[in-house]
């Protein structure tokens, strides 16, 4: 891979400092109620391109603090792209380019003075396929602490706390020094969640975290996500609509071609969406 630490976008934000964070989203606003109070993350006219292909078209959305926000939609709708633009993981793709603004606490993360490394320390991430390091369980959880220089004091205690929050401690307490790869798929994913929360980020991004797991493991992860929302802002991409309905407070529906069509309370989206296309998608008529 040819990761690029710096931003590769060609057009930089025109006014750094975040003064436009309250910019109206009249032109490009999705249906529903895209504005929320206590928003931690605000996306304004966010476009993402991969080479000549535009993967996201002018996304406007607010993500509320300490809630679970689900991003749903058919394959290729841009939901993962949006997720990965929040912590600038798209920077790692050479051909990815971003236009528009994305505010985290009213700071545009695409400003020139933002170091994506520092940003990612505030915004943790859990991936689709469990990806523990080929290290011990303890070292997996402690990895972020070490990387971020938070390994002063009692690392073991922090590891225990993180494993406990990730509902994994009981199962692995006696084998902290065995490899993380020896765990089952569901345990590995909870290990990855523990790893993500150990350095205590504010936001946790989850990219279809349960799609590679069996139903029992999935339900454990879902319970865990609801618990995590008490302390963290959780943004989760899922292609499983029942999952979104079960665990999320807000739901964003992306449809073909990278358009955010509707954003609202999850109940509203699933019971009475404004958009006919969203209703068709929710009821399984397409996608």
């Amino acid at each position, binding site marked *: *891979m*040819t*990761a690029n*630490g710096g931003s590769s976008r060609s057009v930089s934000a025109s006014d750094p400092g975040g003064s436009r964070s309250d910019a109206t989203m009249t032109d490009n606003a999705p249906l529903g109620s895209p504005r929320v109070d206590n928003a931690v993350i605000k996306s304004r006219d966010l476009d993402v391109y991969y080479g000549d292909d535009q993967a996201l078209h002018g996304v406007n959305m607010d993500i509320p603090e300490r809630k679970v926000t689900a991003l749903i939609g058919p394959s290729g709708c841009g939901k993962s792209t949006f997720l990965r633009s929040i*912590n600038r*993981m798209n920077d*790692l793709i*050479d051909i990815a380019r971003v236009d528009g603004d994305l505010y985290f606490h009213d700071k545009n993360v695409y400003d020139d003075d933002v170091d994506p*490394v*520092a*940003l*990612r*320390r505030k915004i*943790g*991430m859990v*991936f689709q*396929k469990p*990806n*523990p*390091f*080929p*290290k011990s369980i303890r070292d997996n959880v402690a*990895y*972020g602490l*070490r*990387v*971020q220089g938070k390994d002063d004091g009692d690392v073991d205690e922090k590891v225990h706390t993180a494993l406990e929050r990730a509902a994994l401690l009981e199962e692995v307490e006696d084998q902290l020094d065995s*490899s993380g*790869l020896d765990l089952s798929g569901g345990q590995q994913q909870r290990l*990855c969640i523990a*790893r*993500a929360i150990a*350095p205590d980020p504010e936001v946790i991004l989850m990219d279809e975290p349960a799609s590679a797991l069996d139903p029992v493991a999935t339900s454990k992860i879902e319970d865990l996500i609801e618990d995590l929302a008490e302390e963290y802002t959780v943004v989760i991409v899922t292609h499983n609509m029942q999952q979104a309905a079960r665990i999320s407070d807000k739901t964003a529906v992306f449809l073909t071609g990278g358009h955010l069509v509707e954003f609202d309370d999850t109940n509203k989206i699933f019971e009475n969406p404004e958009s006919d296309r969203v209703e068709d998608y929710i009821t399984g008529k397409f996608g």
Partner: protein
Amino acid sequence: MSQPDFSHDGIRTARGKAFRYLFMLCALLSILTTVAIILTLLVDAVDFFAEISLVEFLTGTRWSPTNEPVAFGVLPLISGTLVITVGSALVALPIGLLTAIYLSEYASERRRAYLKPALEVLAGVPTVVYGYFALVYVTPALDTFLPLSTFNALSASIMVGIMIIPMVSSISEDAMSAVPDSLRQASYGLGATKFTVSTSVVVPAAVSGIFSSFILALSRAIGETMIVAIAAGQTPRLVDVTDPAGLFLNSIQTMTAAMVQIGTGDIVGQGEAYKSLFAVGLTLFVITFAMNLVSELVASRYREEYR
């Protein structure tokens, strides 16, 4: 109703068999050659050891196959090889590894597409060219600030090191590129810098391949003949741990160079001196074979680790 005809086609079957045996023959050829070489080495070495005891050969500290009084202690030659190997390792392992990290983690895809083949060209340079380059350019350049002999281990080691850099970097880079991207993503996602991702995730996960590249490169350095025969001289010298600088600044003789000297000299086709060639050759073979074995073992031991 007639059944379709699926019966054997004699010509097709025969052709299939012919190709099968042709391919097998080719595979056998290299195996047979290897076996023949080992047998030749063994037979002549056994002949040699009938006259010079194995103990004397392995523990003797003087190597003088032709000049009276003759002595067949292989230790000075092993010392010479060791000096070249260590010297070239000091050059090639760090540079090769860092090059591999650059190519795998830092270079853009386009740049890597040019750099990697360019680097591999180094491996295609005939070693005799490296040898004369060491003798004609490297030694005079070093001589401006070091008390060097005309033939010395230092410039030979440097040149051997440069020769094996592509081996280290290319094989290590392959190993690093094979590390699943998901591990890099996990590390970046936790706020790691590129340097941390490289050193704490990619290199450890690729360690078996990196280790293999080291061993293969060192085996190559141990077996390297032309560069050392040209640039390092023909003076068998035992390692003197109290004077490591002296080892590098002066002329030494490696096992390979000693074999060249015996093989190209006016020694009659028989006699101890001539037969010692095979004893040294066998020693060399055993050392490199053991190293390749270790490399295989280590590689398979760590390979399972992340797959």
